[in-house]
């Protein structure tokens, strides 16, 4: 059965790493639902967060193939209940539509949005949350004259106790100062 998985990939800063990762997904015909990248808590290590829909069996195979890439440090795969995650969306809405009655008041109170900019022509509204909440707001705002909409990929923090740094230490101990294996 297909379900949503969040892949958290920790990588070195090597040019082309994103291409190598997407090749693995492309070969298996897996679409990327959402993608984000930033430097992680460990300096020089990048965290890529990729959301895909696939089966449990396939996510395991794909994760192992990603971890096999030379410049990938560690790959974690999680179902949505194993992580805390957010997406951020920005809406540009025609001001005149929003000025009637208690529309703005209602937006702030029931959708928990922030107003970033107000001009006579448009307002910029920010909403942080899960995709469903953002989609709800999108549907709500459309009748008011939605001018632009942009949404980020998912960012996620895992609930697991072990952090990347402890894996790094373990990998370090296993591999440092080992002699090369002989061939044949």
């Amino acid at each position: 059965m297909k379900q949503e998985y969040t892949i958290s990939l920790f990588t070195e800063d090597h040019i082309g790493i994103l291409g190598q990762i997407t090749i693995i997904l492309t070969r298996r015909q897996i679409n990327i639902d959402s993608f984000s990248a930033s430097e992680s808590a460990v300096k020089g290590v990048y965290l890529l967060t990729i959301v895909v829909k696939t089966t449990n069996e396939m996510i395991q195979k794909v994760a192992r193939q990603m971890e096999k890439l030379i410049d990938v440090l560690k790959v974690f795969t999680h179902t949505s209940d194993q992580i805390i995650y957010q997406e951020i969306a920005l809406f540009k809405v025609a001001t005149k539509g929003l000025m009637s009655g208690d529309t703005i008041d209602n937006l702030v109170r029931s959708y928990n949005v922030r107003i970033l900019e107000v001009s006579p022509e448009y307002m910029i509204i920010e909403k942080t949350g899960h995709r469903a909440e953002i989609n709800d707001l999108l549907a709500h705002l459309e009748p008011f004259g939605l001018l632009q909409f942009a949404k980020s990929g998912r960012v996620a923090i895992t609930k697991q106790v072990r952090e990347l740094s402890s894996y790094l230490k373990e990998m370090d101990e296993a591999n440092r100062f080992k002699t090369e294996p002989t061939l044949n």
Partner: protein
Amino acid sequence: MKTEKETEQPTAEIYGQQKINGAEALLNCLVEEGVDTIFGYPGGAIMPVYDKLGEYEGRLKHVLTRHEQGAAHAAQAYAMVTGKPGICFATSGPGATNLVTGIANAFLDSVPVVFITAQVVSSLIGTDAFQETDIIGVSMPVTKWNCQVKKSHDIPETIAKAFYIAKSGRPGPVLVDITKDAQLEKLDFRYTKCDYIRSYNPHIPMHTKAIESAAIMINHAERPLILAGHGILISGAEKELREFAEKTGIPVASTLLGLSGFPSNHRLFTGMLGMHGNYGPNLLTNEADLIIAVGMRFDDRVTGNLKKYAKKASIIHIEIDEAEINKNVMVDVEINNDAKEALKYLTSLVKPNSFEKWIREFRICDKTEYEKVIKFETKPEKGELRMGEVVSQVSELTKGEAIIVTDVGQNQMFAARYYKFIHPNSFVTSGGMGTMGFGLPAGMGAKLGQPDKQVITFVGDGGFQMTIQELGTIMQYKIPVKVVVLNNNYLGMVRQWQDMFHDKNYASTEMVNPDFVMISKAYGIASKKVWNREDLKSSLEEMLAAEGPYVLEIAIEKEGAVFPMVEPGASVSEIRLNY
């Protein structure tokens, strides 16, 4: 590129502080890594490297092939018979793209080859300059790792990393793309071999618990079977495999690329697995109650229909590449370790045993296969010559002491089936990729790697003509490889499938061939054609005795087919012995 700052070890100043250019730095790196032979082809962007090659005479031998694909295959074969990484040079653009088949071939068969391609000057990258190709992008899916170098001072570190990645863990091809300006730019040369990359972990701690549970399963098995793959040879675990098999008494079957990892004359050897493998190991895979797969990846040509594969067996999988475990076949015990280390520990835990009744079942299958297939194939009394008898005579004449190289197709399957391999790494073939045209260049690469061994390449008339221009390389460097052209004037394997699955519609498989003897002679290579059975043995002897290269063309029966066969989509237990 991002430099590796983690290795804070003292660097030995081997070449002092004199300024050299990037091209010299590259060649120095190769010398440092113990390289002696390079296969390659020059061109505009790589000219600075070739300009300096002459200064390395006596240390680095360059073999000019007739096509970059030939260089790639030759470098792979060189690596397979020497255990050292193969080295291959090509220029930018078409030079680099011509390598791609060879790179992919080495990638699928886990062979360490370091490919060096040149790139246009860095200021022109991205402008569609003359002979510019994004070879990093092109080779990404078929290399273990690749990297572009635009600054000469990055060359030593990148090359060191390339060698370390190519050789360690599950080996594979790497590609380093060096811009022309980086080749010309001066640098202070220092070289330190790479032995650590933070994000790459080839030294996997022993999974002792998994190995211990495997031992318990082995001690309780009644019909166990060992499936030995290429990993045995790569890890150098031939002795460990033998000790494990002999102590436990478990029969051994080999994959195509695993051949020569276990002596074929050993009493526990049951033959080759897979589509055209032996009858016993295929049929009895589905009767086994325990499968111990070592250094193999359950390729579809080995397993046949996965839904009907080894359903009575528990599966123990010893494999260094974690991504191969549970990829095709779900296993019961995963041992993500090097074959040699894992087998050594496993052998210490298992009890001595024997499975004579179980092994008898294999011998009964052998007898059936001999009566229905092998006898007719290797000792026909009438009709035209057959591939099986040629290979089996070569096997007898060389007593298993030769290195056998093949192209792809029927010639390959007959060589794999009927040559009796005794020594490790005496079989060089294109496994995963099935690259026609591999045979001839691989034959010369293998001969250059093992000049004291008799190296015999079996090719068909189809594959021979895909890389036939390498006869020029064989001529120029006087490479005494022996080439056996099994000529049936057909693309035999495709014809066999047309016969079996396409209503004998022989579409585009018949070949009108040139006179291969005349072609060989035009290259100054001794050559002869055999038509009759009575001339076969003496002609083979003449070829084997020849000091230089030799092309022996043998007229082969057209209708020949490789059997047994597990049809595509069929189960291994549905293996057929004839049409």
